[in-house]
């Protein structure tokens, strides 16, 4: 089916871009929200599959930022904020340029690093969060594995049994 294809992303800037200074860790502003690929895949129900990981477990970054880190499309990056850390894919943003800003579509991956602080307004702060991005050699987890690792709801109990 064509409407759930993983997003097509062009390689806009090469890693060896001459005029960018390499850094190990990048300070960014994190935004989350919906995007059409995530929406289509989520509501279709294919959340256990690789396609969901490809559409929601991904940080859309400015190509220049990616060159600074030396990462390409579908490489793993570790995104850290005050609330947690998660490994996601990096990919060139369709909305670039927006240097210093990354976008992770809403989903279990983004949830780990967004703020649950509502400031008594019922609504958590999903956007405008300070975060850092660095290169990672870990694999991005599938949804079920991620949920197990983050929440350990049933794994804990199994451990208690034996």
């Amino acid at each position: 089916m064509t409407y759930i294809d993983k997003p097509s992303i062009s390689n806009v800037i090469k890693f060896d871009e001459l005029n960018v200074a390499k850094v190990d860790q990048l300070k960014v502003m994190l935004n989350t929200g919906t995007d059409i690929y995530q929406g289509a895949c989520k509501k279709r129900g294919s959340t256990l599959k690789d396609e969901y990981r490809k559409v929601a477990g991904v940080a859309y970054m400015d190509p220049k930022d990616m060159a600074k880190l030396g990462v390409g499309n579908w490489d793993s990056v570790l995104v850290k904020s005050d609330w947690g850390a998660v490994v996601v894919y990096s990919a060139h943003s369709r909305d670039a340029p927006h240097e210093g800003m990354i976008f992770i579509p809403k989903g279990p991956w983004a949830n780990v690093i967004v703020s649950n602080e509502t400031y008594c307004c019922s609504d958590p702060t999903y956007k405008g969060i300070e975060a850092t991005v660095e290169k990672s050699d870990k694999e991005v987890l599938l949804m079920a594995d991620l949920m197990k690792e983050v929440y350990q709801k049933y794994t804990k109990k199994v451990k208690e049994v034996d």
Partner: protein
Amino acid sequence: MGYEEPVTDYDKIVENCTCAFCGSNCDDLDCLVKDNHVVAVRHACRLGASKIMEDEDQRLKVPMMRNENGELVEVEWETALDAAAELIANSVRPLFYGWSETSIEAMKPGLELTELVGAVIDNQATICHGPTVQAVQNVGYPLMTLGEVKNRADMVVYTGSNPMNAHPRHLSRYTTFPKGWFRKRGRYDRTLVTWDPKYSDTAKLSDIWIPFEENGDYEFVNAIRAVLKGKKLKKDVIAGIPTEDIYELTEKMKNTQFGALFFGLGLTHTLSKQRNIDIAIQLVQDLNKYTKWVLLPMRGHFNVNGFNIFMSYEMGFPYGVDFCRGYPRYMIGETTTIDLLNRKEADVFLVIAADPGAHFPSGANMHLVDIPVIQIDIHWGPTTELADIVLPGTFIGVETAGTSYRMDSVPLNMKKAIDPPETCREDEWIVTELLNRVKKIKEASK
């Protein structure tokens, strides 16, 4: 994306179905049905089509409960319903969350159950347009229907929202592209404006794109209001936008015949939250001194507005209604889902037609690890990984008929196109069963 041959192999067409995805509630979909399966759908966008042409592998078909190893195993309907009712009846602070992707008909017994056990009932507005509702209570609601925009609007502004990704047919069906009574040439008679820090897919289509800086929305809108009131702006650049541009935009907005402002979660999810919306609504009020302007929140789920209308009608409060004292109470930051979870207050969590696993920050979800979770849904999703009891519902708008409210509060009947899988039950039936069982338990314990 390759070309796909049109589907010609079908038994019948069910016309004018309503899409059960986003708040645009497009009610012109044609479902092509063969052997009780939807094989293709016409007119829907990528989102609507993906939901209707669902992934059958992950469909929840049977009731399930956790065994001693923590795995979900199939059980009888009776067992699952009894266990769920037992949990609800014996809980102290139950929380019933969701409801935005089910019909009004299912909400009715849900509300009765909430009253009976003194629970908190809440819906997705709590994490999306909750601040909007508060702002509306603060400063008012200059609302319209989408039909008015289609026939009259010559300026359409989207801010903090990216309809090309979240409500793909919003522009083509209601606001920008269609020909209207006073806008005979459709798109050519309208100015499309996007205020968004990102060059979003909607911005790419727009005539004017205003990229104010991150978290600069409050300042930017205030600047326009100041200009409208005849004040001089003292800075050269405000929220990343040169002042000349603000003057020019304000002039354009004053000189339209009918303007419509649509705003999304970009405003409610940033730090100024409901104050952003306050100011946006006040901007529309100010603009009305010069010409006609209206506004509308871009509601996400197809019935998220329905729940708010239903609850306001029945109980006087739109969401986050707490019955623990025996009468309805509503206090944002106190009786709302995320706050209840953050404070680790809830002791049973019933989630119907929603996916907190995918949408709540994990800081809030952490509490779901410690309490029993009952899920009523149609697909195995992130929440299922945290659920103790799973009750498979049916698909409103495809397998079950029902009522929903569009984002502009127009109620629509959603048709049924095919029969649901035999082992699934309608949401309304499940909630009513839970209600009856809880009633019995309560009576027996008296």
